[in-house]
């Protein structure tokens, strides 16, 4: 479904993503793990194309030079130069790090904005689905996005991304700063969404332990490069990975 080949991303001369190649299987969850500054977010931003917008803005300002090399193939088409909004139209939806909820809009309006790409019937169906997965959101319909707790915001961010009818859902650090209880609930929800809808998903997380059981295949990044990859069982067995990332 998604094929990343020899992807390199530079900020000026600093390398953020170093020669990463990865394959994402249709209908499965793929994990991307690594510490801070390992290149997870840059990878996600590059797949979703937001990096191109960042690049354009930096170029206008005469600021940091961003370079993207390599190829990203989605459903048989090379998308590395495609605008982010066009990629979203093709079904690549990023649920960004720190959630980026529309703070002045209500929960309902956030979901409506998420559904801009959807047809009326798709939007209606997905809205019902989002409320079954996250019943808490239904109660908070009228609340402004800025007044939600971190966990509620994360649920809303995932719901909003689902409204955009993703074929490939990119979740960047969905568990950032959440309580263990909320963490558990979200992991279950993400697993359920994948099982029920079959949406291909990539989850980038720093803390792999709660995510690992639900991923099909995972990559461990270090300093921008993929150092280890394998199925979730292989990763769990790998002694280096175990000690460094899972705290086992």
């Amino acid at each position: 479904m998604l094929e990343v080949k020899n992807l390199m991303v530079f900020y000026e001369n600093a390398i953020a993503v170093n020669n990463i190649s990865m394959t994402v299987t249709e209908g499965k969850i793929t994990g991307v793990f690594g510490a801070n500054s390992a290149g997870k977010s840059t990878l996600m931003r590059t797949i979703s194309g937001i990096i191109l917008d960042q690049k354009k803005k930096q170029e206008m300002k005469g600021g940091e030079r961003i370079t993207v090399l390599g190829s990203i193939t989605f459903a048989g088409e090379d998308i590395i130069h495609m605008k982010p909004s066009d990629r979203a139209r093709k079904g690549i939806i990023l649920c960004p790090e720190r959630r980026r909820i529309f703070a002045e809009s209500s929960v309902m309006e956030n979901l409506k904005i998420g559904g801009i790409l959807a047809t009326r019937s798709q939007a209606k169906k997905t809205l019902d689905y989002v409320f079954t997965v996250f019943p808490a959101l239904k109660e908070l319909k009228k609340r402004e996005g800025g007044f939600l707790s971190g966990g509620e915001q994360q649920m809303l961010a995932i719901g909003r991304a689902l409204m955009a009818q993703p074929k490939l859902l990119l979740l960047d650090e969905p568990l950032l700063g959440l309580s263990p209880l909320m963490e558990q609930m979200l992991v279950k929800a993400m697993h359920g969404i994948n099982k029920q809808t079959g949406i291909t998903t990539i989850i980038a997380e720093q803390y792999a332990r709660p995510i690992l059981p639900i991923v099909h295949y995972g990559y461990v990044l270090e300093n921008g490069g993929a150092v280890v990859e394998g199925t979730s069982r292989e990763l769990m067995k790998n002694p280096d990975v175990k000690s460094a990332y899972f705290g086992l």
Partner: protein
Amino acid sequence: MMDILIYGTVNSVTFSLIAVGFTLVYGVSRLPNFAHGALYVLVGFMTWSFVNDLNLYYPLAIIISLCIASLLGALIYRLVLIRLRGLPTSEIIASFAFGLIILEGLRLQGIGGFKGFIGPFYVLPAFVDAKFRIAGVLIDAQRLIIIGGGLAVVILLWLFTHYSKIGLSLRAIAQDEQAAMMLGVDSDRVAMISLALGAALSGFAAVVILPLGNVTAEAGYRVLIYALAVCIIGGLGSWGGAILASFVLGFAMILSTSFFGAVWESVVLVGTIILILIFKPSGLLGKQKELEERV
């Protein structure tokens, strides 16, 4: 007393109408459109010209002028501002230059027999020529149309931005451009639409307000300054703030005129602006853009 209330409201709504297009564009795309006043005047002259030179039906002339204005707004974005986004100083200079070309172009003489729009000869007819007496105050129909038009614009814009897909994309881009892009909103397209809409709104203000006086090119500068004043006092990009600021300025003006005389009008206007900014530098309803992060 009653006349202060009524004429104050007319003044305030006039300010709102003038400022709403500017606020919309700035709120959505952070682009200060300094060609705003020029578009206002241009619509006035185009309408006049269509009615008097081409003998078009008045409402049709208005509609055509508004269409041309929004096209021009879109063009300003497509040709110039798209290359400058994120560079506030360049945006101001470029859009102001565009406005200057329009305003000074209107006064050019002698090219292809064009006589230039100079002097007090250009008057748009009032929609309805009548006077009413409301609560003992004499008021002409055009001023009532201004109030009605202002109200209609606010209501329609609210509905548009809350219930249509394009309106929702405008609001999304206004709040977090990149997050909106991730959901499939094309930022350049939305910014272009916002400029087109802003231009049409400035033109609409022109056709309802201008029948009260002459159409002159100089008015373009004054309109721009009013729009800026209202937006800065209200808090840049805040719609509610802009409306509130319009009422503050509108009533400050009418009060100064009726108590101190018309000479004080501009002094009181500027004084109010300075006072508000001293006590609330970000404007009446200006928000700190960074919301506290919740983790």
